[in-house]
């Protein structure tokens, strides 16, 4: 009986939790109930903190290290040469209170996309940002207020006249200082020329195509006939030829007032005709420059020539490797042109604007540009630097001791004094490259490819 009562009692006492007024009176039940209330408040509060915490924070702009050095951050792309040539280390040695943190993105497209996002968000920007020439106009038109004005920097007159004007706004604000420019030549493989029965001496090679890009394509036909190796193409891609032709002119895709003229511009039309002809006739290796396949192509000699701006020499010598040293040579291009080049800009919001501007001015000064040319071959945008003996008499051991200072210096002089840039230059160039690939790799007819390209450009500039 006792056990039965006990059992009954325990069942009854198990009930109270369902009846609020009883549970409130029986003390042991209160403590577990109070705990959830506190926990719930704490949990809700914590989640609010979490949500709020994600919104705050961001760039605190911490510019000093523990030992009191001022930190200057740099965002760059490709091989701009400052890090690679050791100039940043030199600067830090000469200015012991400065610590430079340089971030280099390999691919310019990736770099610029990130830069655009950072500019739009207003965070994540470095103190110094590299600007590629194809993006210059867009930044000048849409983001000028986010860059610091460098036009007051002392001693700017050493730049080539057209260089600084490319990143100057209408009201005279200078968004960046010029690094290198891209005068063009033709890099060729002597051994492959010899196999095809063509001359190998650079003076004679230059003569083959002097004055006209159409002659360059003609040489290609001779090469194809003479070459014993069926798998070796004359040039890497038709896009290189296209770029070389359009960039030899003052205007490419846009007029000065910002209207699109590519469809009627005779320069673009001629370049398209010649490049698409070359693409159709199997003179190209159907590669895309700087994409997979191109690098091993440089090393294994799947093509005999490539149109090369000065900055490309560093890439070729690195990717073709020591085994091909002396097989490559550089010859003057049929016509001078400028492909690429860059600027260094200082962000307006940077907490170390002055230090950053000083660094940019030093890095783009004639002496430093000459150092980069010597070490990597990036061609100076400084007029003064062109007459420094190291530049003027510069040769490249890798490219059969070619007098690259002379060759590119002469090409630089042929670059038109004014170059009209447009907002979407970079993207339009990519679209034309894709259009030529339609012919080269997809077997489309040139007029079909032109129509597609035209439609695409209309959509992207809409």
């Amino acid at each position, binding site marked *: 009986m006792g056990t039965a009562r006990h059992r009954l009692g325990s069942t009854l*006492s*198990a009930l109270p939790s369902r009846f609020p007024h009883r549970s*409130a009176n029986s003390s042991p039940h209160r403590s577990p109930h109070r705990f959830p*209330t506190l926990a719930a408040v704490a*949990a*809700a509060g914590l989640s609010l903190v979490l949500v709020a915490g994600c919104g705050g924070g961001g760039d605190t702009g911490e510019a000093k290290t523990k030992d009191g050095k001022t930190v200057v951050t740099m965002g760059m792309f490709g091989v701009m040469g400052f890090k690679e040539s050791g100039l940043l280390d030199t600067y830090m040695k000469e200015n012991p209170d400065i610590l430079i943190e340089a971030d280099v993105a390999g691919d310019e497209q990736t770099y610029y996309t990130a830069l655009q996002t950072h500019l739009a968000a207003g965070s994540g920007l470095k103190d110094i940002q590299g600007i590629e020439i194809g993006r210059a106009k867009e930044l000048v038109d849409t983001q000028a207020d986010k860059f610091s004005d460098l036009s007051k920097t002392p001693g700017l007159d050493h730049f080539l006249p057209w260089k600084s004007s490319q990143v100057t706004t209408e009201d005279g604000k200078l968004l960046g200082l010029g690094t290198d420019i891209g005068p063009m030549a033709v890099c060729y493989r002597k051994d492959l020329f010899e196999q095809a029965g063509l001359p190998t001496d650079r003076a004679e090679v230059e003569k083959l195509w002097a004055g006209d890009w159409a002659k360059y394509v003609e040489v290609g036909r001779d090469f194809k006939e003479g070459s014993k190796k069926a798998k070796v193409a004359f040039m890497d891609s038709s896009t290189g030829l296209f770029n070389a032709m359009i960039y030899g002119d003052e205007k490419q895709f846009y007029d000065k007032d910002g209207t699109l003229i590519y469809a009627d511009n005779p320069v673009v039309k001629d370049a398209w005709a010649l490049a698409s002809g070359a693409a159709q006739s199997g003179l190209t290796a159907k590669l895309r420059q*700087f994409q997979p396949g191109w690098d091993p192509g440089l090393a294994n000699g799947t093509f005999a020539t490539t149109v090369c701006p000065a900055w490309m020499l560093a890439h070729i010598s690195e990717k073709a490797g020591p085994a091909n040293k002396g097989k490559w040579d550089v010859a003057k291009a049929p016509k001078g042109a400028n492909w690429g080049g860059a600027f260094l800009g200082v962000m307006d919001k940077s907490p170390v604007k002055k230090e950053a501007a000083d660094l940019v001015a030093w890095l783009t000064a004639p002496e430093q540009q000459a150092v980069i040319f010597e070490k990597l071959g990036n061609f100076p945008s400084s007029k003064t630097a062109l007459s420094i003996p190291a530049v003027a008499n510069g040769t490249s051991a890798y490219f059969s001791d070619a007098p690259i200072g002379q060759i590119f210096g002469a090409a630089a002089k042929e670059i038109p004094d004014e170059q009209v840039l447009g907002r979407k230059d970079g993207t339009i160039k990519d679209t034309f490259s894709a259009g030529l690939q339609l012919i080269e790799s997809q077997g489309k007819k040139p007029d079909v490819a032109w129509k597609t390209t035209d439609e695409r450009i209309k959509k992207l500039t*809409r």
Partner: protein
Amino acid sequence: MATSTPAARTDGQPPPPPHGSAGKSGPRRDGSAGQSRRNLLHRLDVRGVPYAFIAPFFLIFGAFGLYPLLYTFWISLHRVELSSLDRMEWRGLANFTELIDDDRFWNALTNTFTIGVISTVPQLLMALGLAHLLNYRLRGSTFFRVAVLTPYATSIAAAALVFTMLFERDYGMINWGLGFLGVENIDFENQKWPAQFAISAIVIWRWTGYNALLYLAAMQAIPRDLYEAAAIDGASRWQQFRQVTVPGISATIVFTIVLSTIGATQLFGEPLIFGQGPNGISGGADNQYQTLGLLLYEEGWRNYQMGRAATIAWAMFLILILVFVLQRVVTGVRARRSARPASATRKTPATPKAPSTPSVPS
């Protein structure tokens, strides 16, 4: 807790003092105001606490899920450039009508669908097979299970880069291997179907093991005696697989199909890296492998038209909803159709079986 109190009383021991606050709670016990307040608190405890506990998820979902979704829709009604997000120009539904007229959208939609099918179907079938093999008693089964999951732990970027090199035209390993069989070098990147197959290969490689482990987990929940019974009935391994395993994990199969469909719709990293550089963004020179994700990226981060990019994002969202509504409708119809004959057939074998069961043990 409740049972311990009377047990203590029968032992003759006094009830434990409630935190030594007996004096404080004494007067309150009689006051009706305190009583009702405690009632309210208690009700808040019971009713409110669950909401408070799940609140973190909903707060975070609101901030990072719902708000972006609605704001994206708001943007899609405007013309906005990435470089000037503060300047918005009202366009109404013009972005949507333009998108429907744009053949790039339809091209991307078909590519997303075809790449989705040629990656999802083999992937799930292979996962099913793998899971079945792993479900056997094996030596070193843990090793194989971990090994099967390693591709999933690899980053998309790394996997896509390696595959890009493998599929490269002139010096890629796959063309090198095909060369021994006398096959001419295939230009994987530039041809539509080879490109799509190459991208599917990356997806398949990465996700097969993951799905296989999901299937394996479900398979292990199937009772062993079902297999034993089937074996006694003379079912072969293949028949066991078809009649016991597959029906047993059907819920998991549906789950993986849902996951893969979402994954296929969002396909982005693999084709982007496979194309390398500007061609990756446009999905090849001829947009031959441009997916919806890539088209969105191209509009937003190459052409800097955020309004149009937001429109594509919403179109993708609507397509996913449409797919699942269709799926529900189809399964609903099929369930209704199969319900009728099933109830009819079940009756007939059930009756003769009932008397036969007691005869088995005797």
